[in-house]
Structures are given as C-alpha cells and as structure tokens.
C-alpha cells in the first residue's frame, strides 16, 4: 500500500502552482483504482477445500467454452478492498452528513431502521420465484403499500412494478396509449409544459408520442386557456408536474383537468413533487387519471448515489385493467400474483418490482402515519418559504407566486461581477453544503432550485442562508476566487468539458 499512500498524499497536498503545469496527457493520479492496487496472486475470497477426485468446472465445460483469464481483473486482499472503498466514501457528500437542498430530488432523511428492515432475512433472502403461500408476508406488504399510496394520492389502484420514476412515466404513458387504443381512437400527441423535467419528453418519445410544448405564463404557471388552445382530438394526455418545477402549485389544474376530459384526453400528473402534497391536495382530487411517484423522494428510500429507486403508478378505475403485470390479488387461500390481465400493457422489468425499496417506503409510511405525512409536507413548505424569505434580498425568487416545497432563485452576479451560478454552486461545497439543482428549470436564467425538505433543522437552513449571503459578498469583492472554487475539497474544479472531448470510460493498463 506504500505506493498508493504516496500517490494519494501527493494528490491531496499538491501545490496549486506546480500542479497546474502538469501535462494534460499525464494528469496526477488522485485516487488509485482497484486495478492499480492489484498484484498477481492476491485475492479477497477463500474457498472451502475441493471435493477429492471431482473434475474442475473448466474441465466439465471444456476449453472450447471457457476463457483462460479475465484480463485486467483486480487482485486485492479483503482489507485493501475495504480501505479503498472507505476512502472513496470519504470523497462523497451525502444527505446524512451534509445539507443537500438539491431541488426536485427531495433529499430528506432516510430512516436507518428502514435499511435494517429491508435486510431482514425474511425479505432479503426471499427468492422471487418462491411459491406464493411461502411469501404471504411479502405479498401482504405490497398490498398494504399499494393501498396506502392509493389513499395518499387519491387514486383507485396502484402498481408497484416500475423500477424508477422515469420507468413509472413510461408505464403511465403506455397506459394512456393503451386506453385510447382500446377505445379505438388512438392519439399521437402529449402536451408537456416548458417547465417539465427532461424525463417527461424522453418518456413520451419512448411511448410513441409526439411532444407538444405548452408555454407557462409570465407568472410561472400553466393556464387552462393555453391547454385549450393546444387541445385537439389527437392529444392523448397532458403530462404535468404539480407543484411545477418552479415550486408553484398549478392554480388552474382543476379547470385544466376538465378541459382535457371534455376532449377525451387524460391528465397525467408527474408526482416527482409529491412531497409538497401529502395531506394538502390529492392528485386524484385534481382530476388526475394517472400519477407516478418516486419512492426515493417523498417516501425516503435512500438515493444511493443515483438509485435504486422505485416509481409506482396510480390510476383511476377506468385505467386499472391496463396496469403492468403481475397484480397482487387476495383470494380465499391468501395473497397471490395475478398474470391473467388481457388489457395490461405487459411488464417493463423482470419479477415484481424493487421490493427492497418497497419495504423501506412502507416502513416510512408506518412511522409517520397519515397525520405525520401531512405534517411532513407542511414542514417542507415551511422550510422552503423560510429559505425563500432569507435568500430573496440577494437572490430573487424566479416567481412572485406562493412557494410550495421548493423555490427557484436567480441572481444578478453574472452582470455585476461575472460570477455564474456554477461558481456559486462550487463555492457552496467549501461550506460543506451540497448545491441546489442548477440551471433548471430551463425557463429561468441561471436558476438555483432549492428544496430544503422537512427534516433539516432550522440551524442548517440558517447556515445555508448565511453561506449564500457570504458568497454573494465574495462574488463582488473577489470573483476570481469563486471562478476557481471549490478550494477546501480533495479536488479542485473538475474539467467536465475535457471528459466529453476525450472520452475515457474505462481503466486500461498503461502501455509499454
């Protein structure tokens, strides 16, 4: 390990001036990779003695079928593996350790009990092909979670099948497509507001729909008049996030739903921002026909560095026959999976959902209860409004409308001192704060989308507001320092353009 130690020490403690002259072709190695710490003959796994006189697996299959080696594969001891990944972990920000107001992502506390519950052998070791009568607890958990999510959203039926929010979107859109076809009136278009997440139009394309963009008005929301203008007999649905990505509750949503339904179109409500709505307004009451949820957002399953999540889909009764297979059903003999669903859109993955995440979400719902969930949304809205008030003197809100669980801010620093939103975000890292979502929504120049969530103490919100104030002053007094931020992390500003210009997507041994 001595060599690796030296390399890391050099990287972390390197002098800016000297290192800046390093040739681009030969950057200093920051952290060694597992492949670089390997030595021939080492391994992190031992095996019990072989049974005597039995042929080796490679002999059974024969040389024709077998490879000789896995070239380049790592060779490390167990302690080396542990040290490597523990050190990597120290280079990460995480919600449990840092304020992480990443807008639209709902980085709330993930109760540690929920991970423990999901790891119970009765859940974790349960094989998906286990006969139903030996898995009644798991099936009942799914049924109870479906019912709870239906109650929270005001929908009639919920499928836990999709693996992530975007897969839930695709599921919902394929349901809309199937419903129109069943009525022998296929439609080709879906209306999406200009404030939408990028997954919405991408999902539409996958589902075979043409995207029609609806313009939000100057105040930042969607008008029923705009939807009526775009509606035709070829519009299958409107796909809208509520509250929208500006953190505004769409005030005309009920009227929009009526307009859609009058023309035979459906209201697809993207539940990415459900954390603002629990006990406040049910998508079902807004007139939604389809809603997808992101369990890793509102229902606190860990984000995992980018998943796994889960993207349940709720529908009104008329769409229930189209939900993915299988469905959880109760019969006299107990719970079972039902695959006999002739109108179903089919399946979008193997087996029956990201069950490990479902356990966590159910545990979360049990912990809060109906009243606690309603309180969670109210406190999330409180925190967001509080930060809005604190930030507004320097970072105006992108809208004058009331704020729900997140708020989009902007600034004049680009004009005043050439400091960009990216510079602000990078400087926040020096304060031990993960930046908000930046440059989104696209309709706001230099946007910073701040979602504090309900689980952050007021002290964390105040520290963020103070850091933002300090950064504002720094931007005016020493803008250069912001251009080169962060300064207190193991790495300085990462050159993302270089990565895209010269894609290196895997480690390879050095030649010669």
């Amino acid at each position, binding site marked *: 390990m001595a060599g690796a130690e030296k390399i890391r020490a050099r*990287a972390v403690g*390197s002098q800016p001036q000297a*290192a800046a002259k*390093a040739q*681009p072709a030969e*950057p200093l*190695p920051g952290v060694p*990779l597992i492949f670089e710490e390997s030595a021939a003959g080492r391994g*992190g*796994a031992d095996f019990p003695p072989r049974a005597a006189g039995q042929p080796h697996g490679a002999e059974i299959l*024969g040389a024709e079928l077998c490879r000789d080696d896995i070239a380049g594969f790592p060779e*490390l001891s167990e302690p080396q*593996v542990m040290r490597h*990944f523990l050190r990597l*972990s120290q280079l*990460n*920000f995480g*919600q449990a350790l840092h304020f992480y107001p990443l807008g639209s992502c709902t980085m709330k506390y993930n109760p540690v009990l929920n*991970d*423990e519950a999901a*790891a*119970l052998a009765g859940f974790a070791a349960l094989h*998906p*092909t*286990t006969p139903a009568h030996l*898995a009644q*607890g798991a099936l009942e*958990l799914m049924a109870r979670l479906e019912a709870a999510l239906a*109650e929270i959203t*005001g929908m009639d039926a919920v499928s836990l099948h999709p*693996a992530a929010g975007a897969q839930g979107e695709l599921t919902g859109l394929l349901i809309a497509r199937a419903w129109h076809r069943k009525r022998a009136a296929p439609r080709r278009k879906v209306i999406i507001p200009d404030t939408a997440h*990028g*997954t919405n139009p991408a999902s539409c394309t*996958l589902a075979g729909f043409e995207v029609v963009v609806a313009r939000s008005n100057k105040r930042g929301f969607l008008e029923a008049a705009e939807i009526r203008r775009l509606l035709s007999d070829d519009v299958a649905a409107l796909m809208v996030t509520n509250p929208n990505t500006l953190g505004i509750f769409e*005030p005309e949503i*009920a009227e929009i739903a009526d307009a859609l339904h009058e023309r035979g179109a459906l209201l697809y409500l993207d539940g990415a921002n459900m954390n603002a709505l629990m006990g406040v*307004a*049910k998508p079902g009451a807004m007139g939604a026909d389809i809603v997808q949820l992101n369990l890793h957002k509102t229902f606190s399953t860990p984000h995992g*560095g*980018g998943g*796994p999540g889960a993207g349940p889909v709720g529908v009104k009764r008329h769409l229930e026959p189209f939900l993915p297979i299988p469905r959880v059903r109760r019969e006299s003999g107990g719970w079972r999976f039902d695959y006999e669903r002739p109108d179903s859109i089919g399946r*979008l*993955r*193997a*087996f029956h959902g990201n069950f490990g995440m479902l356990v966590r979400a159910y545990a979360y*719902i049990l*912990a809060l209860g109906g*009243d606690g969930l*309603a*309180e969670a949304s109210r*406190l999330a809205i*409180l925190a967001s*409004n509080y930060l809005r008030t604190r930030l507004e003197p320097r970072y105006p809100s992108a809208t004058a409308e*009331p704020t729900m669980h997140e708020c989009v801010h902007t600034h004049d620093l680009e004009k005043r001192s050439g400091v960009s939103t990216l510079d602000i975000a990078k400087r926040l890292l020096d304060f031990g704060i993960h930046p908000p979502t930046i440059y989104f929504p696209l309709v706001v120049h230099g946007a910073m989308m701040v979602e504090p969530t309900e*689980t952050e*103490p*007021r002290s964390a919100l105040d520290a963020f507001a103070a850091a933002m104030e300090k950064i504002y002053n720094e931007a005016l007094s020493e803008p250069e320092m912001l251009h080169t931020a962060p300064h207190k992390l193991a790495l300085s500003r990462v050159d993302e353009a270089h*990565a895209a210009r010269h894609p290196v*997507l*895997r480690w390879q041994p050095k030649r010669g």
Partner: protein
Amino acid sequence: MRFFAHTEDDVRAMLDTIGARSLEELIEHVPAAMRRSAAINLASGMSEAEVAATLGALAARNPGAEGFASFLGFGMYRHYVPAAVRAITARAEFATSYTPYQPEASQGTLAAIFEFQTLITQLTGLEVANASMYDGAEAAAEAVLMAHRTAPKRTRVAMSRALWPDYRATIRTYLSAFEDIEIVELPFDANSGVTDAAALQHAADARLLCAVIGYPNAFGVVEPLGRLAAVAHDADALAISVTAEPLALGLLKSPGQLGADIAVGEGQSFGIAPQFGGPGVGFMAARAAHMRQMPGRLVGETRDRLGQRAWCLTLATREQHIRRERATSNICTNHSLCALAATVYLAIMGRRGLRELAARNVELAHRALAALAKVGIRARFSAPFFNEFVAAVDDSSAALARAERAGILAGVALDGYWPELRTPDGAGALLVSVTEMNHDDEFGRLAAALLGGR
C-alpha cells in the same frame, strides 16, 4: 415526530420571518375543495420499535426465505454476499448521496462507477459499459432500442425463445410503440436446448436488426453464441447477448470474444440479495463505435483545474435532461448503489476468485444432476449448462409439492411458460438451479423427493 427537528418555537420564528400566522396560511392558495379532501386516512404514526415489530412480523410470514434447501434460480440467484459488500453499501456517504452532478463532491461514487464500467467491459470483452440499468430485462430492451438507433431502417428483431419470459415480455413492452418493428421468436432445439440457428438464418435478411440470445439461456444452457452471432453478422445485423447469471462470465468465453456487439444482463449475482425480485442491477456493454448511442449515465476520466485525475458524468448530450425528447433514453435515476455492491463484490472475488466460484457452481450443478440421474431423472437438454439445468419430471407441480413437504424448494416449473416443453405424454420440465449455497447432501434428498411419486 422523531424525523422532524423543528420545535414549536422554531416553527413560530420561521413563520414570523416569512410573515405568516400559521402553517395553513402557507397553503391557502391551494383550492379549498382539494384541501378539504386531502386528509390521509391511515393509522397514526408508530414508534421505531412498533415499526420494527410490524415489519418483523411480515418478514416472519415468508417461510420460503429460509429453512428450505433451495434450488430456485431462473434469473435471480442465491449467492453468498461477503460482509464487505454490506459494510460498504451501508455507508451513508454512498447510500444517501444522489446522482453525481457535482463531481467535486461525488468522487467516491464516480470512481466506483468508473470501476464498475471497467469491470463490466473486462467481463463482457467489450469496450464501453454504462453506469447501470434497472435490471437485466430492461437492459435487454434498451439494447434492442440502441441497436435500432444504429440502424433505423432495419425493422426485424430476432429474439430467442430460450430467453426468460419476463425478458421477452419486457422487450415487447419497450418496443410496443415502435410499430414498424417486427419481433420474430426463434425456437430452440427440443433436444439440445440451444437456439435454432436455421431459424435465425431464415430471418437473416436485409431487414434483420439484431439477434437477441441468452448466454447462458433461460435453461442454463451455454448457447453457441459465436455461431449465432456469425449468422447475424452475415446479414450485417447486430448480435446481442443477454446474461442473467453473470457469474458464468467468470468462466465462459466473453460475449465480445464470441462476436456479441452488445452484451447486457442482470448483475444481481454479484453481491445483491434476491429481495423478492429487486432491486438488482442491469448492465450494458458495447463496442466503442456505439458509445454515443448508449442509454443512461456514463462516467469518464478527466482532471481537475490543478491537473489531478478526476471523474465526472460525461457525454450528457445523449441524455434526457439535455436532449429531452431526442434523448437516447429516459433514464435518470439508475441502480447506482447496486452497481457499487457489484463493484465491491468483484473486487473481493478478484481475477482468480470469480473464476473459481464459477467453476464450483458448474461442478455442484453437475453433481446435482448426477444425483438425479442415479434415480433415473434425466436432463431434458443435451447441450452444456452452467449452474442450472432442466430436469424431466413426470408432473412438475406434483414434484414441487412433494419436494416442499420434504423441506426443499426444488426449482421452477417451466412447462407453464413454454407449452412446447410438455411432451406428448404430459411430462413436465423443472429448472433446477445450483449455487455454492447448496451442499452435496441436498442432492440426494432432492432426487428422492422428485422421484417420490413414481
């Protein structure tokens, strides 16, 4: 509520700062009718001890999870998970971070994914791999869509019927909106269990987009991937290999070596518990020429301002948040933490360990078959198999029930999924999956239980 930090004083002070009198005032703009119907009719919240007890009671009602000798596989596998995997994936720095949009604060996740991408290229023998897919079935569907992007005028997908039914169904769903695409299912040889090369040959004209082949296939059979890929290539079509038991790639020739252009699969075997079906982790690898057609996240090497090596998400112009309706996929959240589990697992197993474990799975599965053969139960197919095989039994549901009474989950009945597996005399087919979690003494018990009805 224990997850909330605000005291009554905090709430009042925050409301004062905002200039509001109450929490309800903050949501007064939401239409009153909606607010009135918003109450959530669920039980009150629970203490942590109550939640733990409730979940514990549900877990206890899954007796199939423990206590049986299990031979269940069919796309998810029972393998030992080293403690190091759990210790690393439980780290809050990994578990409670999100998609690494800010590379300076995410080098841990990024470096691990870069390692994952590298490991997948080494296993598959291909040049680029992405940061993960949801699961093997979705990865297979995305591979077909990716193939379509490289050759939009080709409209025929030849899909082996020896792929898992869930995978075939997923591919069909993902292609359901692509109305010009025709899916041809390639039959398998009734004796050997391998995909019928003549049927692929028949489908291989200028319309053929790709051939999708299991490796090993859903019967555990090691397909002659090289021969099938060559048939596809003769028609200038792509060969896609699909692997649900990735441990096999530790011993078998790599898909890339055999001619696969895209290799996808399920990585659950690498350090992830079955969890009643998910989350696992999908993987996808391809040739360098297809790099810009890949779906999902990619991590690339770069440098920081001071010249230090660094990693970041890259080639984002393929992705939904930039390209919107013209993106290569709609993927946002993927299965990053599961990819981390697989990375730690493969680092622990290493170059020799993975091969050794794969070999032992082969050995155990063949010893299990030998034990069945002793009592006259034969393998249905003659082709070589990895760690699962199809046993010919008289009546698969009766055999499963007998085995269950003997404390054995004997496998998965396949005749319901493939009617063609039913012989004229009504005999059934049982997929028996064997891993290092099985022991020699279970094989005799399995044989006796399956034989019991004769």
